[in-house]
């Protein structure tokens, strides 16, 4: 993991009981996780009365350092020993290291989910609806008398947050072909997971 100077400096300040007492440290740590993981977190996350006595610039630096480190650790799936080693290097005492590792462990799953969801991907199918109709006539063609399906795929675009739909019609044979191919894909998936 490559971490910048500012992260290191921020952490060194966080480690210093003179700048951050135990309570302030715990609060800042929690604030860092909250601002990353809580969708409803607002800018006032650092506005706790027990943090008021600390210089706001220092507060921001440390908060940023902590958040950056948490993201890097999450990205590389750091284990407890990696975390401990780095925090030791930054001169954290045993108690603070334990607290950090515990908080990290508690939030690990949410963190990894968040990181996994970031990034570009193809439009993602989320659901399908269908309609079966019996075609009787059009103005160009009478006496049709045949069934037809209208299939709509609900699709999600991860980056643009848009929800386009893809609709198409098909007859019975075509739907059977589609279902057959989808079943092939799922059987193939099953076999692959058994390897």
């Amino acid at each position, binding site marked *: 993991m490559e971490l910048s100077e500012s992260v290191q400096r921020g952490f060194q300040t966080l480690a210093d009981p003179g700048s951050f007492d135990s309570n302030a440290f715990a609060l800042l740590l929690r604030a860092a996780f909250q601002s990353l993981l809580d969708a409803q977190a607002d800018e006032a996350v650092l506005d706790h009365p027990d943090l008021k006595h600390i210089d706001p610039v220092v507060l921001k630096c440390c908060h940023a350092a902590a958040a950056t480190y948490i993201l890097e650790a999450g990205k590389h799936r750091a284990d407890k020993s990696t975390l401990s080693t780095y925090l030791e290097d930054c001169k954290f005492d045993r108690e603070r290291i334990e607290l950090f590792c515990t908080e990290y462990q508690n939030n690990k799953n949410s963190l990894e989910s968040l990181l996994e969801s970031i990034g570009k991907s193809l439009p993602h199918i989320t659901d399908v609806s*269908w309609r079966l109709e019996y075609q009787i006539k059009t103005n160009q*063609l009478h006496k049709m008398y045949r069934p037809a399906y209208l299939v709509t795929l609900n*699709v999600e675009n991860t980056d643009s947050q848009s929800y386009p739909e893809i*609709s*198409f019609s098909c007859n019975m044979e075509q*739907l059977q072909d589609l*279902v057959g*191919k*989808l079943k092939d894909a799922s059987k193939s*998936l099953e076999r692959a997971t058994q390897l």
Partner: protein
Amino acid sequence: MLLDLSEEHREHLAFLPQVDSAVVAEFGRIAVEFLRRGSNAKIYEGAARKLNVSSDTVQHGVEGLTYLLTESSKLMISELDFQDSVFVLGFSEELNKLLLQLYLDNRKEIRTILNELAPDLPTYHSLEWRLDVQLASRSLRQQIKPTVTFKLHLNHNGEHNTKVLQTDPATLLHLVQQLEQALEEMKTNHCRRVVRNIK
């Protein structure tokens, strides 16, 4: 159900008894070809010269024949009704038989062509799929994320479109289940009764 042929239509068709059956058969072939691919004025001129009539006469004859065939195909009229409709034109027995044969031979194809004129949604053509496993991304390493990638081929208004889409294994199973239910629906009593009774 009888076809209703207008005055103008009958006039156009009146050209047909004046030529050989071979020519009428040829006109029939040209009419269907024009339905498939669009009309071509040069053909009219060539035929007009050979038959020693005006190009307009030939055109009307072919168009009259085309309309006769498309209307009959659209309504899917029975043989008997077709014969009765044509009878009013006062053609010879031989010509009537020829026209009937022309109708029966080409009906299916003409109906397919007419079907393409209906309001159209994209139609399914085929599906390609691929299994992938995502191992890492810029924001997270050491992943094992199975994905299914599809290329859906659709036809719309003669154009071929493809859409590349993705889904996860759980949704794939859900898609299969939902669409199988859709197929099953046709086999229910309700649908069978509708199909049996609406004819």
